[in-house]
């Protein structure tokens, strides 16, 4: 650090100063992911008290796999929610895409990669179609996506035929949700995550130093990495415990799969979340997405092509949703007409629980993913407790309402500008 700047940049001071300013921001109502983290911890504590199965390695790994679909769908939705738009059809879009995929596999199973690609092209096209109606014609996204939400189950029924259900016969795709990686691969993944986090932080730091800007003390980076390392190590270790011991599946079960090691889906989720976060935080597109979500008129006057940003967001949403579809079909093993109908509202709920504002411009992808994990934990725990499905829905709804209320109250305390 050379000369002293006339204004603060938020990077000044010792580790202690930085922590103090973090806590004062918390007090002022800028809570970030804390409500979602709190909910996750609380729910996990509660379920482990109420059910002696919840904390077993097999259930926790299962929870990880279960949550993958919702995490992907929520991440997809974040792109449009940040614009204060909504895509109610994201679920049935992936349902229809997967119906196309399994149907094409029937006649030409050997070209499954191409068939899968076509499903993604379909997702892309749906996003383009929706974006066109929203950005160019001015149809509210709620309406156009509701139209697709109503139409696509019909399309699925036509594709899938009388039975309304087709099974997935591609072992490679089945492996995503059901296969596991060797034990060392889990640790390697963790090491790569840590390396990537450290590299990005140090890169930013180097750029700040080069620009003569103050930098945060290194111990803070150490704390961040330490946190990631501890949480990551716990997850890897749980996945690496032999789930046969005291597990629910017996080795003679025909559905028996490897029972040790990190599920294959985890690196997929990690990489996609990483790429999307990078896009939102570090590219011009991401900055413009937040700008359009916060104040479209200001964005337009600043020369941002608002319609193009809107189109792109819808295309990303539908295409990413297709990945959620792949996870879904991989887990369930078949596609039914109506696939994806109910999960989309859980995705919206997850984003809100993760602090993403439906008014646009506010919220972070990683926190929304955490929100998805919270909703999945509720599903998983209540399932273990044998709670009737009706009650399950009521509780999920209540959690959404509580999360949105906490968020609204916190914002009100932070200055209330959002509520005006």
């Amino acid at each position, binding site marked *: 650090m050379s000369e002293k*700047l*006339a*204004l*603060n*940049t*938020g990077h000044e001071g010792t580790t202690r100063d930085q922590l103090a300013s973090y806590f004062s921001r918390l007090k002022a109502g800028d809570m970030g992911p804390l409500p979602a983290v709190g909910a996750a911890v609380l729910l996990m504590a509660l379920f482990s008290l109420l059910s002696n199965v919840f904390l077993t390695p097999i259930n926790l790994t299962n929870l990880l796999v279960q949550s993958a679909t919702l995490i992907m769908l929520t991440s997809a939705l974040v792109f449009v929610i940040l614009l204060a738009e909504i895509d109610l059809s994201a679920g049935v879009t992936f349902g229809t895409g997967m119906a196309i995929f399994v149907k094409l596999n029937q006649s030409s199973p050997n070209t499954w990669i191409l068939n899968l690609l076509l499903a993604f092209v379909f997702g892309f096209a749906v996003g383009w179609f929706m974006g066109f109606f929203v950005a160019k014609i001015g149809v509210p996204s709620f309406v156009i996506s509701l139209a697709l939400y109503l139409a696509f189950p019909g399309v699925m029924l036509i594709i899938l035929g009388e039975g309304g259900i087709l099974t997935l016969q591609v072992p490679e795709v089945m492996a995503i949700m059901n296969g596991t990686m060797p034990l060392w691969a889990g640790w390697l993944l963790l090491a790569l995550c840590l390396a990537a986090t450290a590299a990005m932080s140090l890169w*930013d730091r180097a*750029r*700040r130093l*080069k*620009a*003569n*800007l103050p930098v945060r003390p290194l111990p803070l980076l150490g704390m961040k990495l330490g946190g990631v390392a501890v949480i990551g190590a716990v997850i890897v270790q749980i996945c690496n415990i032999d789930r046969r011991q005291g597990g629910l599946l017996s080795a003679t079960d025909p559905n028996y799969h490897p029972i040790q090691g990190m599920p294959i889906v985890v690196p997929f989720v990690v990489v996609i979340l990483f790429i999307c976060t990078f896009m939102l935080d*570090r*590219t*011009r597109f991401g*900055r*413009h997405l*937040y*700008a359009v*979500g*916060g*104040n479209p*008129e*200001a*964005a337009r*006057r*600043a*020369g*941002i092509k608002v319609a193009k940003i809107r189109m792109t967001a819808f295309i990303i949403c539908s295409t990413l949703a297709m990945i959620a579809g792949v996870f879904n079909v991989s887990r369930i093993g078949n596609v039914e007409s109506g696939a994806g109908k109910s999960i989309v509202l859980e995705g919206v709920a997850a984003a809100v629980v993760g602090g993403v504002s439906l008014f646009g*411009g*506010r919220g972070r992808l990683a926190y929304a993913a955490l929100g998805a994990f919270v909703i999945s934990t509720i599903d998983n725990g209540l399932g273990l407790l044998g709670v009737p499905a009706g009650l399950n829905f009521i509780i999920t709804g209540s959690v959404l309402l509580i999360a949105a209320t906490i968020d609204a109250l916190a914002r009100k305390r*932070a*200055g209330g*500008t*959002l509520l005006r």
Partner: protein
Amino acid sequence: MSAPVIQLTGITKSFGPVDVLKGVNLVVNPGKVTALVGDNGAGKSTLIKGLAGVQPYDQGTVLFEGKEVHLTTPRQASALGIEVVYQDLALCENLDIVQNMFLGREELSQLTLDESNMEFAAVKALESLSVKTVKSVRQKVSSLSGGQRQTVAIARTVLRDAKVVILDEPTAALGVAQTEQVLNLVRRLADKGIAVIIISHNLIDVFKVADDIAVLYLGNMVAQLKTSETNHNDVIGYITGIKGSKETK
């Protein structure tokens, strides 16, 4: 004295049968604050929109640094160095000060946002205007006061290397202390050699900050006066039409 940066001659603009600007002349000098005053409906906003390229004039010549230009798009005006700070400021409350100052003109390095260089440039721009009241340049705009927001919007024009900055009623929504701050800022902007055009209804403010006062009355430029050579009553006379047309210079 240096040459005018903008010279308008015989500018007209009609909306259908309504003649809103009826042959307006205006001279704007670098390093000077020119106040544009006039009653509601006199045509101030229409005159400004033409300069901003938002709503092209019908007739008349626009000389920019002595050369004739035709302003037909905002991009064109902005490329010449004409920046407008609208009354509603056009800031994104969900973004921080640096992000707002570079909105739409983000700098990149290695294909990613060059946050550090943008942050440094933003600090320097605010520093050059002696802005000291913001806590951190990474504060979200939603947490700023009205005066601070106005400051950010004005400082943004400095970053864009504006030669002409047009301010539409910059103090209309502000309290006494904040108005004072913004007027000081306007003065410093001019002291940097920028030509400032300020629309205001508050003659006290106008007399505090302006070097020249241009008065529009029903689409005619009835007077362009030196602040030092006139007084409140004169200006009010021109605004209300009690005094007749007297184009100085």
